[in-house]
């Protein structure tokens, strides 16, 4: 269980950064509050709390990618990884150690989002519990993206690619902020070829208690998660060899 010590270290590095807490936990809540306030003044169906919250929980996961990628890229940039590569830790220990501690943080983020939504009027049903559980594949997808980006990018590049590009992609192409049907055309096609909108629509279906409607979105998310995880592991192993 050597990986547990390494995972514990990674969790501490992430949770001790106040910016991580502000963006990872604070920002999604601010968005829910802000958009709900807009909804109260100018009613828009897409910003109704039961429709909005699943989108915010998925969007919030883009920060998990940022956390994961930043820790890995910083470790690669310093000599700490080099030191740890000379210890009995195996490649498996490193991969689990980097991914495992972010999962509970991601789950905590989604739970906090749903608690905020409950305060703002979301009905308390067992579906919220299911929604938190069905978010796990999407959480793994965003964590795998972090492992992938952290394995190939520097910490400065991670800031740009994950902090700016991915968060925008996850926002615009997820159907959280506007109905993708309104844009249509190539934009809609691209959005539906990516996993973000599928993760959001799956979450909306689960929260609404329409479990039959989670398909085919669940397959899209699981497929992307599997492919991304495999690519991330391969790229991590490649950079490990390069060290």
């Amino acid at each position: 269980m050597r990986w547990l010590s390494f995972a514990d270290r990674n969790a501490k590095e992430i949770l001790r950064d106040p910016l991580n807490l502000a963006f990872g936990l604070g920002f999604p809540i601010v968005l829910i509050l802000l958009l709900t306030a807009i909804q109260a003044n100018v009613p828009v169906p897409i910003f109704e709390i039961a429709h909005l919250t699943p989108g915010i929980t998925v969007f919030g996961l883009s920060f998990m990618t940022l956390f994961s990628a930043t820790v890995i890229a910083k470790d690669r940039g310093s000599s700490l990884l080099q030191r740890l590569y000379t210890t009995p830790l195996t490649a498996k220990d490193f991969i689990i150690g980097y991914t495992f501690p972010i999962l509970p943080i991601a789950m905590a983020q989604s739970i906090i989002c749903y608690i905020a939504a409950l305060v703002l009027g979301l009905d308390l049903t067992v579906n919220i519990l299911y929604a938190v559980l069905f978010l796990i594949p999407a959480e793994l997808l965003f964590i795998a993206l972090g492992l992938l980006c952290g394995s190939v990018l520097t910490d400065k590049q991670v800031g740009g690619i994950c902090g700016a590009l991915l968060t925008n992609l996850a926002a615009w192409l997820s159907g959280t902020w506007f109905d993708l049907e309104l844009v249509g055309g190539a934009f809609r096609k691209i959005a539906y070829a990516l996993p973000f909108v599928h993760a959001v629509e799956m979450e909306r279906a689960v929260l609404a208690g329409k479990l039959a409607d989670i398909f085919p979105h669940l397959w899209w998310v699981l497929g992307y998660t599997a492919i991304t995880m495999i690519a991330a592991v391969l790229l991590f192993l490649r950079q490990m060899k390069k060290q």
Partner: protein
Amino acid sequence: MDAIRIDSLTKKYKDVTAVDNLSLTVKQGELFSLLGVNGAGKTTTIKMLSCLTTPTSGNAFLNGKSIISNTCDVKSIIAVSPQETAVAPGLSVMENLELMCGVHGIGKDRRTGKIAELTELLGLDTVLKKKAGKLSGGWQRRLSIAMALISEPQILFLDEPTLGLDVLARSDLWDIIRSLKGKVTIILTTHYMEEAEALSDRIAIMKDGRLLVCATAGEIKAMANTDSFEEAFVRIVKGATK
């Protein structure tokens, strides 16, 4: 048995030969220094010996274990303090030491005693609760060495341990390294001639990946016909160019 036996070790990166047919031995408990100008192949040699890089050809045996076919066994008997300070910046000094205990599988029963012992040896008790990232360069190097020693390695690699430190911090680290002599086999790389001369039992001088000389500081000075070790180093390295 020799602590380290290097047989024709070579590392090539495309057209560049970083280490060229290196052969030497290091005795148990010896403090052995690798000297050379930038690009001499010192760090690549350490990377190969610590199983970070696979040699292009040749082999090396650390306490009889091959760096090619017994990497797991080699990793269990070595420790590396890399060139740059390799600490987890967001963790306290204590947590950094606990991290290394954990990755080396040192149980909680032994952990407290081990950390207390190293804290005393390296004088870390006053900074134990401070975040590693907030420490000065000298303290970070001490912590880095403590992290390397936590697993009680049989062979310790110190890659430029005093680089960038002020005179006092360097002197303190020299004392610490001296205190380890005889207890653990140490391979030290350094740019500082006086450091190599003051600390080493034997010194190997490398240039362009090749071994130029391997002897005691006194023997090297005699070979170069000078009383100054720095002058001897310059003559040997320049002589190899001609």
